[in-house]
């Protein structure tokens, strides 16, 4: 066994590939499933003297990375699929340049979204911007592609995209490492070769780009990232990209079809290797497409097929368009997996897959009877719980049927029970702020419901500032609540510009949200919602009664982050006075368990008393304030002494 073979997550492998490929700068904006790429780059930072940072958003990241490329060095940006929308404006213009250094954009899609507010297939952007895009099937290949693309980007002078998906980015397997190339860095920007996208130059550069892409296609025809396996006379060929290849291969093996079915694995998804595909289209009578999210390969192959004017002979196509490849959500919806491919193959070939109907029936019966959903919840001690309680009660008191508009982040869970079902509109980063600004303009049409916008601290800097300026400049009446927990919690506690008080000063210059909002002339209150829920409630209510744009910054450090940081420090936990606890009686009815709904609060049904799981309680004291019986106290877990 090769001693350089280690276990790596797909994202770690991509970072390793960039390192091996000689990257000098990497940046991005955290977002599942891409965050670990830049996290891993941070771990290389000091040893390999590369520049790594989190950007405020994806377009800034790409613009900053492009500067390295303009100066002749390799740069990588990483983001989730939503991020490519944010940076697409720059992407479509930088594609027209003749780059001096490699510029690699890694985008991780989230099919059947595990942590996203859309199910976008980012491969379309390769076609829109006319830049090369590769899709790896394994962490090993992800590493190879990242490494290769950086140099290929430099060679062709155009940015390149590497597309991953959640299961690959977060999957782990053994990866064989190569040596790390550290190119001698001599950055220089050639003033005689301006990179200017003025209209009269655009047509010239666009033409050049298309020529480059023709050359790229020729290179891709020979690419080892594309492979065929199976019999040379296979009449049914599975054309597949990314993880689809592994699912397809397993399905073919499971059904013992290795002697009859061929698999054409495409790694160079854009531009497609037309010659290679035509070769197999000619060989095949039937083609099955297996790929994540949209029928991208499927559509493009059909275009190729049509372009040959019948030279390929009759081919029957199976895929998402025909409905043969689909999960429970339907074709093009949700993740694909081994079962989806097995189902497609058995349907096409009219086979039976190994499957026990008896077991399935038994399983379904038990599932129906017992499988209680496990809804997502704010962590124990999470400040969002207090913030949304304050907002909920303030809106109830206000009585105008107000509602909350927000976006994705841990606080997006406030659309569910853990956040008292408060968020009623949730879209892209920062969308709540823009929505609230617009809702207030409905006033002249007789609309009276206040819309409260929420966004996290990181989101605030990512994309809320334009909305805030817009609201203020256009005289909107809107309340913006910034849920400032000092870190970008959902994606792994990354620091961001608002990370006041928790960031090492050599990492970032913290910029408190209120300094910015007050600078815009916006009335701003800053308070800790957990410390005094009553005051938080009152502030939200009072601000709702005022005209104009107002900002409340609810500031309290993420409890889980804090716990990770101070592992061995003094810990405190809430404890329920069993004598005082009212349980189900009138006056309480399990308020803490049912309503506050913190994972650390449990209920002992036989005793009809609430109790705290002291192992996991974060000691935030929120429940102390809310217990109607004042039956909850705070104790030092080491000494058992009552602290509060």
């Amino acid at each position: 066994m090769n001693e350089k073979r280690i276990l790596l997550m797909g994202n770690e492998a991509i970072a390793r590939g960039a390192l091996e490929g000689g990257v000098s700068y990497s940046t991005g904006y955290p977002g599942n499933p891409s965050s670990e790429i830049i996290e891993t780059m941070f771990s290389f930072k000091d040893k390999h003297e590369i520049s790594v940072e989190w950007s405020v958003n994806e377009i800034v990241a790409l613009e900053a990375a492009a500067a390295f490329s303009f100066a002749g060095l390799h740069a990588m940006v990483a983001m989730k699929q939503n991020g490519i929308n944010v940076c697409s404006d720059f992407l479509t213009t930088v594609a027209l340049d003749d780059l001096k250094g490699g510029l690699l954009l890694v985008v991780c899609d989230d099919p059947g979204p595990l942590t996203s507010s859309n199910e976008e297939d980012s491969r379309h952007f390769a076609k829109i911007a006319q830049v090369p895009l590769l899709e790896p099937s394994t962490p090993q290949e992800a590493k190879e592609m990242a490494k290769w693309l950086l140099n290929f980007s430099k060679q062709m002078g155009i940015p390149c995209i590497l597309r991953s998906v959640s299961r690959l980015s977060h999957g782990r397997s053994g990866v064989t490492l190569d040596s790390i190339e550290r190119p001698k860095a001599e950055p220089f920007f050639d003033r005689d070769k301006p990179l200017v996208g003025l209209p009269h130059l655009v047509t010239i550069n666009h033409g050049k780009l298309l020529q480059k892409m023709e050359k790229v296609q020729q290179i891709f025809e020979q690419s080892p990232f594309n492979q065929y396996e199976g019999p040379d006379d296979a009449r049914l060929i599975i054309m597949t990209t990314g993880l689809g290849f592994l699912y397809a291969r397993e399905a073919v093996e499971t059904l013992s079809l290795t002697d009859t079915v061929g698999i054409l694995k495409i790694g160079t998804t854009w531009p497609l290797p037309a010659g290679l595909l035509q070769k197999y289209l000619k060989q095949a009578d039937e083609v099955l497409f297996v790929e994540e999210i949209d029928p991208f390969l499927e559509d493009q192959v059909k275009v190729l097929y049509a372009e040959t004017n019948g030279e390929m002979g009759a081919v029957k196509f199976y895929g998402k368009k025909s409905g043969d490849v689909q999960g429970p959500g339907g074709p093009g919806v949700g993740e694909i997996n081994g079962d989806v491919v097995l189902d497609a193959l058995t349907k096409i070939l009219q086979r039976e897959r190994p499957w026990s109907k008896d077991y399935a029936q038994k399983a379904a019966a038990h599932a129906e009877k017992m499988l209680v959903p496990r809804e997502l919840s704010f962590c124990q001690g999470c400040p969002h719980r207090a913030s949304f309680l304050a907002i909920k009660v303030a809106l109830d008191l206000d009585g105008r049927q107000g509602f909350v508009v927000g976006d994705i982040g841990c606080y997006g869970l406030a659309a569910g029970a853990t956040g008292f079902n408060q968020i009623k509109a949730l879209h892209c980063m920062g969308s709540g702020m823009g929505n609230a600004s617009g809702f207030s303009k409905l006033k002249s049409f007789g609309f009276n419901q206040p819309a409260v916008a929420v966004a996290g601290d990181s989101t605030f800097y990512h994309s809320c500032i334009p909305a805030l300026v817009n609201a203020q400049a256009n005289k909107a009446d809107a309340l913006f609540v910034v849920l400032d927990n000092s870190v970008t919690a959902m994606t792994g506690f990354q620091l961001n510009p608002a990370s006041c008080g928790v960031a090492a000063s050599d990492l970032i210059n913290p910029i408190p949200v209120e300094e910015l909002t007050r600078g815009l002339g916006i009335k701003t209150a800053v308070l800790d919602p957990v410390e005094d829920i009553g005051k938080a409630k009152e502030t939200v209510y009072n601000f709702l009664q005022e005209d104009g744009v107002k900002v409340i910054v609810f500031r309290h450090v993420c409890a889980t982050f804090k716990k990770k940081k101070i592992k061995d420090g003094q810990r405190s936990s809430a404890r329920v006075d069993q004598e005082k606890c009212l349980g189900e009686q009138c006056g309480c009815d399990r308020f803490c368990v049912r309503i506050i709904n913190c994972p650390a609060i449990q209920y002992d049904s036989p005793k009809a008393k609430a109790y705290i799981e002291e192992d996991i309680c974060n000691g935030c004291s929120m429940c102390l304030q809310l217990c109607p019986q004042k039956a909850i106290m705070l104790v030092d877990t080491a000494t058992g002494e009552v602290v509060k």
Partner: protein
Amino acid sequence: MSCTIELEKGVIDTDLCTNCGACTNLCPYLISFKGRVIRVFNCETENGRCHAFCPRINVDSESLRDDFFDKEIYVPEIGPFYGLYLTRATDTGLRSNSQHGGTTTALLELALKEGFIDSAVLTQSTGGLEPQTIIATRPEDIRNCQGSSFQIPPTLAGLNEALKGEAYKKIGVVGTPCKTLAVYKMIKKLATDDEHGMDKIGMVFGLFCGWGLDWLGLDDLVKRHTTVNKLKQMDILPSSFGVMELKTEDGLIEIPLDEIYPIIKESCKYCTDFTAEFSDISIGGARSSAGWKVDQGWNQLIVRTEKGKELLEIARAKGVLEFKDMEPYNLDKLKKASMNKKRTGLKNLIEKTGNKSDLMYLSPNDPVIKGILNSAPFK
């Protein structure tokens, strides 16, 4: 159905809620805020105290009356009745700050001194706005609460607070008819839960009430005519005068009743009690049919219980109150006014339900209600 949902559907959403406060301060689910009771979250308890205390759900006046009052002295128009009196406080200082004759304040102080009560749940307001409930244990605290608030403060939220713990053993309560009715429902429930529970209420003082005003509506109205911090007191004169008076630092401001009627609290339209029939003593401004000025500065007072009688006798003996002879027509006028309110309330309820046998919170089998419904204009 859970009690909070039932109250929300049956009382709050139907505009029957008077914001008396009886259901609040018991639990984290019901909150009184600026004149409205709001359900935040749901309680799954089925027979909660909120439900048992509410004066606008399941009111069985007849049995409640029989539990606490002497049947022999019952007068259909105005409830239990030992006598009607015209009184005012002897203390002129007290009187000068009062709405009418200062009788309520004088009696409360006396009740406190004589040990009838050890505390009083009262309302303190800023010139009649932003009323707040306080628990008074000293005469000077009581004096700070002089003057009316038409915003209908949730006084009983304060009572619920006072009932927690052992600090108060004989609480005095002052309130409008909806509130004193709730207090008797509370006493009954407390007595069911704990035989000594009812002892905690020392005495109940009712206030005559025609109607109250919408909290936010009154805020707006006052703001239209003056600034809130200049306001000292407000009063609504008998309808023949057609004005509301705002006493301000800049002098008296008269607001025509045309501006008042639209902000009458919706729930008050469904009330059938003018004289606070559930109380030991109930007190109102004197309204002589010989002319409003005749008895201006005096209170009229109904004694309804032995305890009330006893307190009034002490007041007379100690010279705390001055008494004025009464013309016989005063009682008739009061009965007529009281009966008018009953008829109007019932009429409005029937209009709301469209059904004579559905009186929402009231029982159509109550003999008084039956009597009214069997006569003109209902018959």
